[in-house]
């Protein structure tokens, strides 16, 4: 968490700050080990343990007996129960975002600008298995390195860009002005933003597109567009050139993700075609060429498409890309499902399949990263 601005620190109560950092870290996983928390917060382990004891005493967190790690308890909700103000754009966007994720399995996040970064205010990770992140809410995403930040920055008006850059310009880190200008130009040209390949992903593999505030409208309206779908709603949300580029990028063979409904037994070709379209969603506030740079007014947010962290999944793999079968399973008949598992297990083994996660319990991979299924 923000460890900058040392001179402002003297006015803060250090232990309260640490407790808040720890609560935020606990929110990111269903279960966290002491080591996870240490890695996330940078706090010494003895301090973490003392804070955890305090949280336990207040009924906010507990050590999970079966796995030896820590989890939040329902009472943490009392900490935010008085917060009712939800920006209208989040309220408006959440429905269509959830619908999209339910239909396509693809996670989406919506972020709003706050002070010097984009803050994730809505995400649909919990509606899909296609994300290794547990939650992205309240993540602060850099304007310079994350896709959502870059999209927001690039599609801001020139004078706003200058202000934003002066805010994020950190004298201790070298910013290459020319590189920033090139990034802005290529993002505008492309119509959507990509994350800095060198930056750590907070949201898996993300693509950012922009929402725009339109003064005449009372609130923003979202249009979802899916490539390979004949519906025309939102087709003009992006200039055709950008739509094609985004679809092409998402549709690269190495990023291929095949999705289908459980009962759908179409052939392999059908699945892949469907899968290529599955990742494309464009949000615009107007339904007309919102991404048209000339017309862009002030921006109110950015929306990101999170792929399933394909990079993270394969980071330890050899040159040959591995493949992952991701299953969302809601068991209706336990007995019959047990029979299925008994029959499927030897087949999975026969084809060299290896379980990374099973059921709701996360397993550890050999490199120590937890994977949620």
């Amino acid at each position: 968490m923000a460890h900058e601005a040392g001179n402002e620190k003297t006015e803060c109560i250090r232990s309260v700050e640490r407790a808040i950092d720890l609560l935020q870290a606990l929110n990111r996983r269903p279960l966290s080990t002491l080591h996870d928390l240490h890695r996330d917060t940078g706090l010494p382990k003895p301090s973490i343990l003392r804070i955890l004891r305090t949280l336990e005493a207040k009924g906010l967190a507990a050590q999970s007996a079966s796995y030896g790690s820590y989890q939040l308890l329902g009472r943490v909700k009392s900490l935010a129960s008085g917060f009712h103000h939800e920006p209208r754009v989040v309220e408006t966007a959440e429905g269509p975002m959830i619908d999209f994720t339910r239909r396509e399995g693809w996670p989406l996040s919506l972020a709003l600008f706050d002070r010097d970064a984009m803050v994730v205010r809505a995400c649909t990770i919990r509606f899909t298995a296609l994300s290794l992140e547990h939650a992205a809410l309240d993540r602060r995403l850099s304007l310079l390195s994350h896709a959502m930040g870059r999209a927001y920055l690039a599609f801001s008006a020139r004078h706003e860009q200058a202000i934003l850059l002066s805010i994020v310009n950190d004298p201790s880190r070298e910013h290459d002005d020319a590189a920033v200008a090139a990034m802005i130009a290529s993002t505008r040209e492309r119509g959507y933003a990509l994350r800095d390949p060198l930056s750590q992903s907070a949201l898996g593999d993300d693509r950012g597109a922009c929402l725009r505030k339109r003064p005449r409208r009372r609130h923003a309206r979202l249009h979802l567009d899916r490539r390979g779908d004949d519906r025309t709603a939102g087709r003009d949300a992006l200039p055709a050139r950008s739509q094609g580029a985004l679809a092409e990028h998402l549709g690269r063979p190495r990023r291929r993700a095949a999705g289908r409904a459980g009962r759908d037994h179409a052939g392999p070709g059908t699945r892949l075609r469907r899968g290529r379209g599955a990742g494309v969603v464009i949000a615009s506030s107007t339904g007309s060429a919102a991404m048209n740079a000339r017309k862009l007014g002030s921006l109110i947010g950015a929306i990101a498409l999170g792929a399933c962290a394909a990079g993270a999944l394969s980071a330890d793999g050899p040159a040959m890309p591995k493949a992952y079968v991701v299953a969302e399973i809601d068991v209706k008949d336990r007995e019959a499902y047990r029979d299925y598992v008994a029959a499927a297990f030897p087949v999975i083994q026969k084809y060299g399949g290896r379980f990374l996660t099973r059921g709701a319990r996360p397993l550890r991979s050999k490199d120590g990263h937890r994977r949620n299924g």
Partner: protein
Amino acid sequence: MIIEFASLEQAKAFEYSKDYTDIAPLRQRSADSRLFIVEGAADVAASRP
């Protein structure tokens, strides 16, 4: 649930094998399910322009 396979071909070989398609109806009867095949990236940095 995530199952790792050595390659996309191998994952597809599994999904479309007679071994598996014979038992898939068991899954469809006993659970609501959705399956995805996702291919990992060979070179993460190179794949992001």
